[in-house]
């Protein structure tokens, strides 16, 4: 029984934090969010690629690093803490599905370059209206809230009955249009398909389900990092800011609020780590653990920044302060890949209520 990282995992965590802190100071996050169309630079992507991040969870046979969900979660927590605008996660979603259900040929064609950082994919899941229904391998319809589609080379498109199709963004019948998201640090797009050609992945419900569980846990870990940073900002502010001749952190309205934030952050962290470990080492617990992690972190991910904003008072509500980016990321994450209610219902089912 040892609920701590091993030396290699700790090294990944520390180097990720240092690198992200130096490359993504909050002025850079703000610049990318507000002034950059894609939300990241080629240079930034190259650096992540050199570190091997895009393929971290991909088997070595497919050109990846062959590490596990725990390592993916470590990166995601740090990316959330830094609030780094990057297509890392959207790319990972596509990669997880390809790794789970891609044929040998499909993995060679799309997963290997993805793992090498030479091509990027993203997941197109949410339908604008009625669910998309393919005609053979031809896809027509609109997917919304597709992260980083504007800079992706291919899409993994989810349709009914757990089926997935790879669609290359340069192909015929694909039109990609930027949309404004709640969270400006993650760029969203609408994807319009008109008879676009899709390459169907294998239908392996268990493997696909594990891929979605992994995405949910990775997003939960990101929200944990977001919440931790918002808590750190609140604590720092509560120590510095004085009212009525005392730092506001001495008042229980503030200090107990911060304690509550800590409880939620630590809870989100424990359950995300546990779910990652379970997906790697105790597959029978993975689905339940993942649903718990996403449900808990969906709530904590925006409530903690909202609570931090209250600690900051008026200054926290200004555009110039960085806190709002954390609130927006946390709330957008809560809505992505199944909200808290969806995952609680899954917990009820899997826990045998």
């Amino acid at each position: 029984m040892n609920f701590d990282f091993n030396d290699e995992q700790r090294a990944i965590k520390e180097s990720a934090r240092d690198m992200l802190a130096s490359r993504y100071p909050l002025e850079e996050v703000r610049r990318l969010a507000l002034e950059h169309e894609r939300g990241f630079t080629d240079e930034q992507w190259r650096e992540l690629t050199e570190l091997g991040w895009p393929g971290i969870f991909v088997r070595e046979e497919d050109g990846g690093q062959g590490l596990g969900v725990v390592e993916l979660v470590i990166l995601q927590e740090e990316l959330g803490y830094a609030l780094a605008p990057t297509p890392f996660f959207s790319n990972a979603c596509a990669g997880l599905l390809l790794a789970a259900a891609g044929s040998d040929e499909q993995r060679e064609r799309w997963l290997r370059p993805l793992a090498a950082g030479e091509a990027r994919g993203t997941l197109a899941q949410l339908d604008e209206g009625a669910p998309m229904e393919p005609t053979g391998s031809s896809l027509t319809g609109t997917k919304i809230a597709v992260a980083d589609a504007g800079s992706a080379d291919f899409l993994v498109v989810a349709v009914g009955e757990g089926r997935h199709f790879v669609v290359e963004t340069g192909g015929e019948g694909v039109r990609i249009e930027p949309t404004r998201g709640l969270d400006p640090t993650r760029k969203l797009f609408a994807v319009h398909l008109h008879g676009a050609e899709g390459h169907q992945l294998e239908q392996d419900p268990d493997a696909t389900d594990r891929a979605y569980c992994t995405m949910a846990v990775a997003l939960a870990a990101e929200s944990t990092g977001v919440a931790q940073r918002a808590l750190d900002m609140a604590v720092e502010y509560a120590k510095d800011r004085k009212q009525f001749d005392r730092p506001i952190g001495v008042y229980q309205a503030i200090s107990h609020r911060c304690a509550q934030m800590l409880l939620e952050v630590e809870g989100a962290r424990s359950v995300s780590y546990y779910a990652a470990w379970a997906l790697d080492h105790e597959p029978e617990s993975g689905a339940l653990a993942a649903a718990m992690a996403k449900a808990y972190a969906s709530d904590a991910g925006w409530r903690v920044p909202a609570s931090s904003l209250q600690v900051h008072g008026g200054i926290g509500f200004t555009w110039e302060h960085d806190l709002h980016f954390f609130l927006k990321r946390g709330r957008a994450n809560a809505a992505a890949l199944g909200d808290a209610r969806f995952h609680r219902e899954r917990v009820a089912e899997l826990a045998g209520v």
Partner: protein
Amino acid sequence: MDLTLSPEEEAFRDELRAWVAEHHPGREPEGDEAAFQFRRDWQKQLYDAGWAGVSWPREYGGRGATLVEQAIFNEEMVRARAPQLANVLGLAMGGPTVIAHGTEEQRQRFLTPILSADEIWCQGFSEPDSGSDLASAVQVRPLRQITGEAEFNELFLEEARIPDENIVGGEGNGWNVAITTLMHERATLAFGLQVAAKIALAELFARARETPLDGGSAADDELIRQRLAQLYIESEVLRLNAYRGLTATMKYGVPGAEGSLGKWHWSELNQALTELALDVAGPRAQLWDDPWTYRFLRARANSIEGGTTEILKNIVAERVLGLPRLR
């Protein structure tokens, strides 16, 4: 106990409602400058018709109306979705403060231009650091909010000199005047707030009915129904507490601490309302193209602006419950 309007109050309401229906200028134009001019014109129109500052004394351009009529005015304006006024803070805070604490000269000088929106007032209460030194003249810079809009301003005062005759309430009486100012803000704004909450809630009901869920609509969903019902009850409690407070104010002459309770309660209600709206939106809450996304963000300020919830709870604990104050 009589929660219906008296014949006089009904007549006041009907007259106002007819006037607003006839003169409503329609939707606010886009753009800060245009919107401001629109609001200023609207206020001028109200002033000319005798509807600005309804509860202010007639000698300063008001209508001399009762508090109930003032409450009816606030409710009707929200209900008609009338445009905002250009000079909200002058009407809600500055003017009442001058009426309560000003000299006769100050009243003559300042009150009418507030009503006509010829002079716009702002309130400067928050400082970047407590105990900071106020540092050539007055500079104003718009302050953008997390919603992306600029509704507040930063005000820089550098050796600005204020003429003695502009001190309200006399030198050394600042805290007392400030408290009155805030109590007026809370007591008078509360009525508009509760109606605004009710309108927002009606919109949320409609949103729930229009949102498909599991073959029906979100309004058929038991969880959402429970939360909507609770918000409906809270909005009614807010309204009823405001009316009880109004009755007490009319009886005892000064606004009580109920205003603090109402402001705090409203902020929680409005935040809960926008949170539920985003839950109803489900995965679409990731998108900006929904008016509720803006409202969700804007609502975060509700528990800060006009007195933080923490300060309001302090006030309730000390002034209503008589609990001791930390020294």
